[in-house]
């Protein structure tokens, strides 16, 4: 293991910031598991074709004086150990740190692992971003955002932060609370359970299930089979791609805006209890405004709506608000 050290001193008023860098590289054959435990700082992990694991870290410590800051920076370590076919990368801070009101420390870690590695990563008080890892990711983060870019088979548990996912394949499970979830071009099997935040999905494909509470859900350019279940919040969904086969919208205590693009076939049916269905399209809405059915063209997406305490607005164009902007 190669470790390089560099110390800088930055004085700001009565505080001094010490920066120390750590670099290391170890063998990590593809298929090995990698487990990373970190907190206080960003953790970025990317997959590569190499069979080595490479770690670069920047430690920043701010203290009352250079001596105490340096002392602490020197004690912060990132251990890289291989045990039972698993590579452990663990950030460790000294147990007893001299109390000081201006004390601050954090470590930003960049880790490159074989793309076929199976990754487990935990972080807190910092972002966690993973890209190009195909061997499966189990990520847990608190007080920071999670980003996933071109990964495969991922399970994310997040609290107090947003989750961003780009071009994931295989399965994707997201359990998020107190934050938003953004999905872009995510395919295959997707299940999102979110609370206290919004969910936005664009270009979803495969079997996708979005379950949200206390926030809004918005989907565009969906393909495959999409189910949206939202509770106490609004849903905005589009049928605009002929590759969308099924759209199930279930809403409770909310409002649903369904946009059916022109020239895209569909078969639609649904009902709401304690709510109203309104449509600007030639659909059959019963007298009570509780049931709707209709179709356009041949085949197309099977759209099923069900709501309780929910109003549905079905239209071919989005409703414009007073500002002329598309409603959120």
């Amino acid at each position, binding site marked *: 293991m190669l470790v390089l050290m560099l110390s800088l001193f930055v004085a700001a008023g009565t505080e001094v910031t010490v920066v120390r860098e750590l670099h290391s590289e170890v063998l990590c054959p593809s298929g090995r598991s990698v487990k990373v435990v970190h907190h*206080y700082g960003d953790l970025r992990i990317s997959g590569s074709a190499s069979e080595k694991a490479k770690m670069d870290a920047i430690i920043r410590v701010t203290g009352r004086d250079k001596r105490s800051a340096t002392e602490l920076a020197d004690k912060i370590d990132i251990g890289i150990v291989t045990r039972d076919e698993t590579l452990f990368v663990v950030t460790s801070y000294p147990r007893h740190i001299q109390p000081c009101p201006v004390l601050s420390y954090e470590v930003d870690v960049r880790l490159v692992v074989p793309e076929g590695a199976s990754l487990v990563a935990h972080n807190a008080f910092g972002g966690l971003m993973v890209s190009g890892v195909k061997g499966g990711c189990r990520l847990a983060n608190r007080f920071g955002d999670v980003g996933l870019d071109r990964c495969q088979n991922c399970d994310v548990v997040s609290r107090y932060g947003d989750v961003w996912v780009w071009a994931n394949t295989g399965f994707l499970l997201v359990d998020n609370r107190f934050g938003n979830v953004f999905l872009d071009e995510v395919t295959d099997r997707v299940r999102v359970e979110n609370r206290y935040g919004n969910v936005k999905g664009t270009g979803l494909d495969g079997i996708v299930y979005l379950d949200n509470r*206390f*926030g809004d859900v918005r989907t565009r350019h969906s393909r495959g089979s999409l189910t949206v279940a939202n509770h106490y919040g609004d849903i905005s969904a589009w049928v605009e791609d002929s590759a969308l086969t099924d759209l199930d919208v279930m809403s409770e205590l909310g409002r649903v805006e369904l946009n059916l693009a022109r020239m895209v076939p569909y078969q639609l049916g649904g009902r709401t209890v304690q709510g109203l269905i309104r449509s600007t399209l030639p659909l059959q809405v019963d007298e009570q405004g509780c049931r709707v059915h209709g179709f356009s063209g041949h085949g197309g997406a099977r759209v099923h709506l069900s709501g309780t305490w929910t109003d549905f607005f079905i239209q071919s164009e989005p409703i414009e608000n007073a500002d002329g902007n598309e409603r959120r």
Partner: protein
Amino acid sequence: MKQCYSDEILSAYLDHDLEPEQIEEIGRHIEECSGCRSALEQITAIRDAASSLEQLEPCEKTWFEIQRRVRKGRLKRIWVWSGVGAAAAVVLVVFLVRGRPVQVPETTPAPGRRQVEAGLVQEYDDYMRGIDKAVEECKTALSENPHNPRVQRAYLEARSSQINALDVFTSGGD
């Protein structure tokens, strides 16, 4: 024998709406007069038959129609939560949906007040527990890393959420 009593008087006698002496006098008369006795029996039969008529229930459609009419012209009604987004966290409820959502059967009623209230309490508790936990975690982090800007920001946001949530639910309105 005294003159017979009118139906109105007999009806009043039936309801004890007369002076005690009158009631006594009519009672004596009825014992002797078959015509008045028969009239009283018929009035009693009418009263009893009327009071035994069942209370009727309107059909279920009536309630839906009432709701439709009530909502007509005020489509905004309770859906003012559009835009509340994540902040709505605190307020309502619903059923846990595990797995693919079940289609609402024809006979499933919408959740009533009790269900929604019970859920509201549960959800509010959950939300507050989540925020309280965030505050505690941030406090612990601050005790070991007091000047870390990420920790400070997280703590401030958690605290302000805690205060806002309490404020929203205790103020009862602006």
